[in-house]
Every structure is written in C-alpha cells, then in structure tokens.
C-alpha cells in the first residue's frame, strides 16, 4: 500500500495508476505473452477483435449520437450476411464451372461485401426516416427506453420476417477464397481470416479518420456532445442522424458479410454478435467509439483465452464474468467517465 502511494506521487506514473490503465496494461501484456507462448491466441484475437470492433463501433456511434440503444444491430449483421450470400453464390457457381477465372477468384468476394455495406446503410437510413424521426417529432420523453423497445421490436420483426420468407435454412459458404492457408507468426491462418483482419483494420482506420479529421465527422461528434450547440452552428440534426444510422448499420452489415464463412445466414445469426457488441460497449462505456474499438480487442482476447484453456461452451461465460468483475470496480466502463453522451448532461 505504501509503495502504491509513493508511486502515485510520481506525476508520470500517476497517469497510469488508474484501474483502466492497469487493466489495459494487463491485456496488452497477455497479448505480448501470447505472441510468444501461444501465437494462435494473438492471431485469433486480432481477427475476431477486428470484427467485434466494427460491430461495437457502430453500436457506440448510434448510441453516442442518437441515444438509441440499437438492439436491432444483430439483424443488420444478418442482412449483411444474407446480402453477401446472395451476391456471392452466383460468383461461386461461375468459379466452380470454370476454375480458370483467376481474376474472379481474387476479387469475387468483394462485390458481396460492398453490396452488404450499401444495403445495410440503406436499411439504417430507412430505420431513421421511418421510425426514429416520427418518434422524435412526437416526443423525446423516455427516449432511451422507447427506442430500446422500438429496436427490440424491429429485431423480432426482422428475425421472423426472414424466417417467414426464407425459412430456417442455413445459407453459408465454406470459404471465400479457395486457396491454401498462409502463415502469420507461425500460425496457419486461412486467407479468409487474414482478409477479415485486413478489412477490419482498414475499416477502423478509415472510420476513425472520418470521425476525427473530416468536417462531417467533427459535426457528428459535436451532435453527440451538444445537440443545441450543434444546431446553433448550423448543423442539420436530421442529416447527421441519417448519416449516423447509415454508417453504423453499414458497418454491422459489413461485419456480417466478411464473416459469412464462419456465421452462415440464418434467422438468429445476429444474436451472438449483438450480445458480444453489447459486452464491448458496456465494458468500454456507452457511446464511446474509440473505447469500443479497444474494448472489442479485450473481449476477443478473453474469448480466445477461454476457448484455448477451457472449452468452446464457456466462450460467453468467462468474458461476461470478467466484465461483471470490472464493472463492479468501474461502473461506467473503462472510458465512460471522461466523455459523456448527450443524455447524461
């Protein structure tokens, strides 16, 4: 205890003495350790973490800017996986008929992913214009609770609409790229997974640059912090809300499309990604986009440690347990205290 107090008096160290930094430090150390001892943990953490980051960043963006806890986020994942399947199937058939089409082999998966991104964005725009905007015009009382119920309802309708029209069949693929696995840190990793990692990191980089560097991204952050102030500066809230839904939902659909080889399209496929994204967002602090990206990799690390050292069945239990423990000490999440959403003011 005395050493801890003494260390706290060193200004440089004091910054890092907080619970948040300690936990992040431990997570980083485990990752470094796994790079040497069990590289598969690190590789899998990067791959799944990247995708959870995309899901969770969209969720955090929508909550931070619109105060909508989007419980239909998993169905955007479903829409993405279905769109990608629909677009990729004929391409896959063409490749089976004529395996000599090398160029199609390389770029074949991308049209489906792009289509998923666009369809997801379109669904997001429709949700904002047909559901949230009329509700907002009517009343903003109990907004978080009302939009929670609304999105939970949308989720039920979409799941069962899918089941009604397309049935309970699994629509999946075994792989996007039919090539031999490559090696990363000595771990064999399928090209599909490597592609997921590249897509995730690229998307995160583009998305962060958009939020932090562009005029529109700055306007989105402004709306998250003070709607009245944003309007005073001439920012059209409806335009920002529409854009937020387009980006957030498009990202979820892109995740669904990229992971099609792991999660085939079927009615309930969105539930696990939805829950994981919520773990991440709660862990990071509601509405904090950068925190959500960091949190996604922590949750992925916990999941992969669980899978490696216990059994797959525990994959949700252990991370949830750890998150409960962390929240006991830090109720607002890792980054929740520093940056506040609109409704907390």
């Amino acid at each position, binding site marked *: 205890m005395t050493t801890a107090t003494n260390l706290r008096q060193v200004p440089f160290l004091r910054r890092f003495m907080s619970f948040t930094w300690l936990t992040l430090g431990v997570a980083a150390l485990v990752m470094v350790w796994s790079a040497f001892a069990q590289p598969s943990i690190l590789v899998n953490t990067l791959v799944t973490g990247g995708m959870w980051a995309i899901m969770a960043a969209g969720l955090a963006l929508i909550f931070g800017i619109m105060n909508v806890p989007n419980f239909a986020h998993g169905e955007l994942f479903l829409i993405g996986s279905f769109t990608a399947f629909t677009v990729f199937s004929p391409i896959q058939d063409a490749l089976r008929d004529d395996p000599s089409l090398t160029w199609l082999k390389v770029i074949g998966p991308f049209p489906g992913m792009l289509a998923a991104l666009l369809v997801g964005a379109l669904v997001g725009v429709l949700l904002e214009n047909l559901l949230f905007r009329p509700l907002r015009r009517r009343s903003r009382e109990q907004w978080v609770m009302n939009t929670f119920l609304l999105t939970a309802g949308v989720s039920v309708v979409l799941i069962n609409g899918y089941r009604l029209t397309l049935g309970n069949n699994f629509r999946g693929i075994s792989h996007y790229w039919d090539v031999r696995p490559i090696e990363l840190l000595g771990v064999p990793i399928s090209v599909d997974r490597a592609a997921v990692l590249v897509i995730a990191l690229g998307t995160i980089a583009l998305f962060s640059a958009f939020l932090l560097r562009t*005029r529109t991204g*700055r*306007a989105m*952050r*402004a709306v998250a*912090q*003070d709607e*009245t*102030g*944003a*309007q*005073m*500066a*001439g*920012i*059209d*809230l409806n335009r920002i809300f529409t854009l937020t839904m387009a980006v957030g939902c498009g990202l979820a659909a892109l995740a669904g499309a990229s992971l099609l080889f792991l999660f085939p399209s079927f009615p309930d496929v969105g539930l696990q990604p939805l829950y994981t994204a919520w773990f991440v967002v709660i862990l990071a602090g509601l509405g904090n986009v950068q925190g959500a990206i960091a949190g996604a990799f922590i949750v992925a690390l916990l999941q992969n440690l669980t899978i490696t050292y216990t059994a797959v069945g525990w994959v949700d239990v252990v991370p949830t347990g750890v998150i409960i423990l962390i929240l006991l000490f830090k109720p607002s999440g890792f980054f929740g205290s*520093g*940056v*506040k959403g609109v409704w907390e003011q």
Partner: protein
Amino acid sequence: MRPTLTSPKRRILELTDLEAGYELLQVLWGVSIHVDEGEFVAILGPNGAGKTTTLRAIAGFIEPISGSIAFGGREIGGAPAHLVSRMGLGYVSETLNLFPAMSVYENLLIGAYAVRDRAAIATTTDLVFELFPRLQERRSQLAGTLSGGERKMLAIGRGLMATPSLLLVDEPSLGLAPMATLATFEALKALRERGVTILLVEQNVNTTLHLVDRAYVLEQGQVVLEGTGQELLANSHVQEAYLGI
C-alpha cells in the same frame, strides 16, 4: 419616451407582436422589438420576464404562437434553428452549449461549420484569437476544462466564427466573478466597435445601460419601456426597480 429614430441604416431584425411560450405556458404577450445594422441593443428585465424566450424564438428553438420575426427582411418565425444560423444569425445561449470533449480550436471550427472557404475560416479564427488572446493560449485545451470566463469567451468566439450579421448574446455575466464579467463586457464593446450588431440580454442593468445604444425593458412578457441607454438611466421606473436609487 419613444426615441425618434430616423436612422438611414438597414433594419436587421424586427419582431412584431410576437407571442411565444412553452406548451401550456405562454411567456411572450405581443413583443415588438427592432435592431438596426451596427446597433448595440439590450433587453433588460427581471427573472421570468421572457428575455431568454425572446432570444430562443428568434434563434429558431421555439416556434412562435403568433406575430412575426423578420431577419434581414425575411420571415424566420418557425424556421429550424440550423437554417436561421446559416442565414447569418449567431446565438450565444445562457448555457453556452459548448462541446466539452473537443479542444478550443475544434469548438471554433464547428462554429464555422457553414463556412466552406478555408481562408475565411482562418481569418475569423485570427480575429477571435485577437479579441480573446486567452483562447489562443488554450487553443488545444479541452473546452470542458476551461474556467467560467474562458467558456463565455469561447461561446462568443464560436458565435462569431460564422461571421453573423447579428449576434444574440444571452446573459454573459451569469455566474461570472466581477473581473470576468468586466472582461466579457469589454469584449462585447470591442465587437461593437468592429461593427458587429449585437442584441444582448442582461440582468446587470447599470453596466448594460452605460454600454448600449438602446434598450428595451421587458416585464411579464411585454415591452414596458424602450429608449437609449441614457434615457433609461434617467427613467424613474428603471431607477426604482432596477438601479435601487
């Protein structure tokens, strides 16, 4: 008491018989006010008289029940706030509505959101930093960590970033220490000397009347007095009710 105004200057803002309020509570009962180009006008009055409501109605945050709000000759009553702002009306609210997790500089950039010309933004930023050197010192500091007086400066600076033709300022002295209040009034004076048209709402009657060209006294949602600063300082009602003489 009515001042004889045969000013050749353009009328920038004109409220005619404005009635407005919140859901079941009507606050303004026929307010008529005007501001000419280059003028420094104040609205004075006790708490609950409807001063802030008047500004909120002008800025587009409240839809008027009846009456008209003409800004630069165009009717803006009921227009959404972001459009009113883009037409050249700056609004510095009582609560400031800054973006606490953004730097001072980013707050200013948001203020210039509607301005597309980068060179123009740089020029206005320089002007704001010249008016408030303190903001330049704290350029990269988060707005949420500024002192009360610095926040007012930032809010006024942000309001100036879109180079508005009229700036509405709501109670800049609210919650400030006397020194900071003085600095804020000095800044408003400097703005006025640069030709910015200002409509100010204040409770600090004595200082305000010495500063402005004209003022309106608002009581229970109606204009009860209007005149130049000197005229109102000499008025017996103002002296009794507001100056304690």
